[in-house]
């Protein structure tokens, strides 16, 4: 509710900040503006100022243009154009909400995908149905989940923050189910495909010929051989826990990271959009770096 509060425009802020008494007596202003002191008038303040950025919005965003906005280079993400609130806490809160359901969904998907992939390889199921489920878009899968489990709006809206764990699971069950369907089908299809490839190798056939049980040969030897592939694949998909949940959040009304970016784009709120983009990219850079680190070992190289 606090975030939705309408605050005065930057012009009004500027007129207010000229008078320090007025600033001190303005309790509705954000803290960073309440503590402002008026700029001392020196002889050089009469000179015309030269701006290299020539009113370039992105330069201002990156390097700042005032004491209040010191730019991205100083770790300041700027202010939302819609409600003039600082962008960083808005994005961090939204990311926290997203991680609350996307991270458990990713972990569940990894486990379910691994188990399904192994079992389907052992039972020699065809791999095509899993691939087909994995390429069905999340908005179609989410729509069918929504219509199957929320007919009449019986589930709680996914906005529970401080409730107990049961309420949270109930509230986030549909987004988690959709994400698990999307991710686990993809994971299991790939694991199944790679395992099938391993079963054609000579070492696997030799192990079977020597009398090793197929279950043991598959789950211990073949799985160990494709482990670098699996870990690389999981690392590739990891950044999607933040940036790949836009559709699911919009569909189920989760006030998370993707929905914040979507709303910001609809309202042309560029600082929030750029902040979201930067945060998602940083997560992707970290995983690319970790992937490179992992593959720098010759045993793990693909």
């Amino acid at each position, binding site marked *: 509710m606090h975030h939705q509060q309408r605050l005065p425009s930057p012009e009004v802020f500027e007129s207010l900040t000229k008078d320090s008494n007025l600033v001190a007596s303005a309790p509705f202003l954000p803290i960073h503006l309440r503590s402002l002191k008026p700029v001392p008038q020196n002889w050089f303040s009469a000179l015309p100022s030269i701006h*290299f950025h*020539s*009113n*370039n*919005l*992105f*330069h201002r*965003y*990156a*390097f700042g243009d005032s004491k209040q906005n010191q730019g991205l280079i100083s770790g300041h993400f700027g202010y939302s154009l819609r409600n003039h609130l600082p962008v960083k806490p808005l994005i961090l809160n939204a990311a926290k909400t997203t991680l609350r359901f996307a991270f458990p969904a990713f972990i569940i998907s990894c486990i379910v995908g691994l188990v399904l992939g192994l079992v389907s390889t052992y039972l020699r199921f*065809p*791999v*095509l149905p899993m*691939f*087909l489920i994995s*390429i*069905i*878009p*999340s*908005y*179609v899968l989410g*729509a*069918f989940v*929504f*219509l199957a489990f929320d*007919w009449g709006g019986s589930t709680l809206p996914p906005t529970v923050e401080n409730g107990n764990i049961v309420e949270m699971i109930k509230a986030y069950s549909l987004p988690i189910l959709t994400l698990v369907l999307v991710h686990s089908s993809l994971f299991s299809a790939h694991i199944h495909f790679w395992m*099938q490839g391993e079963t054609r190798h000579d070492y696997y056939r030799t192990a079977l010929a020597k009398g090793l049980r197929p279950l043991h040969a598959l789950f211990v030897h073949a799985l160990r051989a494709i482990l670098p592939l699996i870990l690389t694949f999981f690392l590739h998909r990891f*950044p999607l826990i933040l*940036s*790949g949940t*836009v*559709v699911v959040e*919009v*569909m189920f009304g989760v006030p998370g990271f993707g929905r914040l*970016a*979507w709303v910001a*784009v*609809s309202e042309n709120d*560029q600082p929030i*959009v*750029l902040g*979201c*983009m930067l945060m*998602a*990219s940083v997560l*992707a*850079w970290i995983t*690319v770096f970790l992937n490179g680190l992992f593959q720098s070992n010759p045993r793990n190289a693909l």
Partner: protein
Amino acid sequence: MKTSRFIAWGWIFILGLGLLLSMILDLQNGKIPMLEGQLAPGSAEAVLGTDHLGRNLALGLLSGIPALIRLVIPSLVLSLALSLISALILARNIRPKLPVLSFILLLFLLSMLGYALSWIRIFPLPLIALALGLGLLLLWLPLPGYRLRLPLPYLIQILMLAVLSIPGLLLLFSINPSSYGTLIALIGGTSWVATAQFSQRKMENYFNSTEFQNAHILGLPWHRILTVHLLPKLFILLTPQLAWLVSGFIVLEGSLGYLGIGLPAEHWGWGQMLRLGLQHPDLWWTWLFPGLCIAATTSSIFVVLKGKPGS
């Protein structure tokens, strides 16, 4: 497997017929005639019912086919062109010669001028140009007449890393293109890396083969080696890779339509229809048919391009 391929080819044939029909009925750019009944179920006048504006849903589904093709095929061509060029540069280690000082000065001055005049609105570009320019200047300043070999493979590898770390959907959001050209450039420009890496490996195998060495020794020109010998072989190997790429483009088009962002105003696709349909979950015909169309199209394209199960 044969049954699934037969069904997939059947759906693609239906899509082709739908495209022809949409061209005959002039349904491009989302021009669908309005009927009187809004949100009406199927009838003789509108076989699949009508949406909230009284538009015929069957005609809406037909108009989604040219919209999809208009976006997917140019993006695919651009993505393939970028990936093949990058793969060739990486596989052959192509480093074109450039005059050192003119290159540095041109790059630096153009980027700074563009930034100061607000033509370039991406802030790190002048910094990259400055760093690159200063680095090259320090390395080659003692030899101003030396012709630098531009480290193109290295730059492409850096670009690949950068593209891999860009979240595609968020990039489309943040730029929010209003024309097909920009949208196609963005989709094609962010989806070429996986194909390029795959093509690079296959090209390296080909350039190390005796077939290529024989052709080279016999004096076959480069364009003939590339167009007659390399590309046909490469395209056969690339087909399963394209299954993911094309399906991904169809999903992306639907995602943008579903979210109502990033598509030109005249674009009317199945994603938009699904979004509007889900506002009335009780009226099943408004959301079921677009959802089925998207799922069937992605699956069919995937099955047809993926080919044999082991490929």
